[in-house]
């Protein structure tokens, strides 16, 4: 049963990723990507990494997708096609895949409410994760803090407005 769930989720991930790559409407693409990320989070959970699954949802599906949508909205926002928006084919794939995803999540909880069984032999609890991260990869965490700092500084430098600029920069 767990194996069936695993392959279902893997298929959903693949399908949503392919759909994400082939959509013309960027907003649709991002929403498919969110579905792919949710499916991946469930896979992480099944493989015994619950905290990673949570970060996947919070960081990727939550924060980074917001950024993607912002970037899309910075440019001309896509106009919804009035002719197709009511049709069944328009709704079928996202709803079906989303429903399947929800069913998989529900099945996972129903089968394994204590969240103990996993496909891998090792269940990485959040405590173990935190301990490994800060004991063995402490230096990596500090390097990441510097990378984050410069991500903010760099984005600010490239995105801010200058007063004494040429015409292109204003606007």
């Amino acid at each position, binding site marked *: 049963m767990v194996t069936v769930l695993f392959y279902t989720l893997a298929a959903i991930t693949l399908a949503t990723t392919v759909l994400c790559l082939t959509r013309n409407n960027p907003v649709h693409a991002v929403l498919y990507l969110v579905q792919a990320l949710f499916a991946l989070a469930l896979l992480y959970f099944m493989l015994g990494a619950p*905290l990673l699954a949570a*970060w996947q949802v*919070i*960081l990727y599906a*939550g*924060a*980074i997708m*917001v*950024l993607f949508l*912002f*970037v899309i*909205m*910075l*440019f*001309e*926002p896509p*106009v919804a096609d009035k002719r197709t928006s009511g049709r069944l084919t328009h709704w079928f794939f996202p709803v079906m895949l989303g429903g399947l995803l929800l069913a998989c999540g529900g099945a996972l*909880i*129903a089968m394994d*409410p*204590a969240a103990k069984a996993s496909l891998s032999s090792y269940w990485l609890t*959040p*405590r*173990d*994760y*935190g*301990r490994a*991260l*800060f*004991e063995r990869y*402490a230096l990596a*965490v*500090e390097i*990441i*803090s*510097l990378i*984050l*700092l410069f*991500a*903010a*500084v760099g*984005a*600010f430098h490239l*995105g*801010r*407005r200058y*007063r004494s600029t040429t015409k292109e920069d204003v606007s």
Partner: protein
Amino acid sequence: MASENISTEQLAGLDALMSPLGWDLVAFALYVGLACTIVGSLLLAARFLGHRTRSPLKGQPYECGVEPSGPARPGYPVPFYLTAIFFVVFDVEVAFIASWAVAYDLLGWQGLAQIAFFIITLLIALFYLWRRGALDWGPQRR
């Protein structure tokens, strides 16, 4: 004797179904159901109770009584995007702080020093952005 057996079996079955974790699940399902019901009923109430008129004129975006002169959804200005990037940066920070927090007692003082270094670095980032006016909204100063 027989009836007693049956009753204990039934009890055992019920117990297995409604183990403490099972009750948690029921509570969770109830919670989800309640949340959905409340939101759904509020939305539906607005739909049924509200007064509705449909006309093409009403569908038009309102621009102080003037005819609309462009798309209703223009591109967002860049400051929104900057705010989004800063949000992501500090959101990633949360992932590390929470990873430390779940194991803070195992990591001890050394872990505290490490996470303090991490947080201070990002606080400096925040201080820099604040000083350079990245968090200012509205017309630019200076």
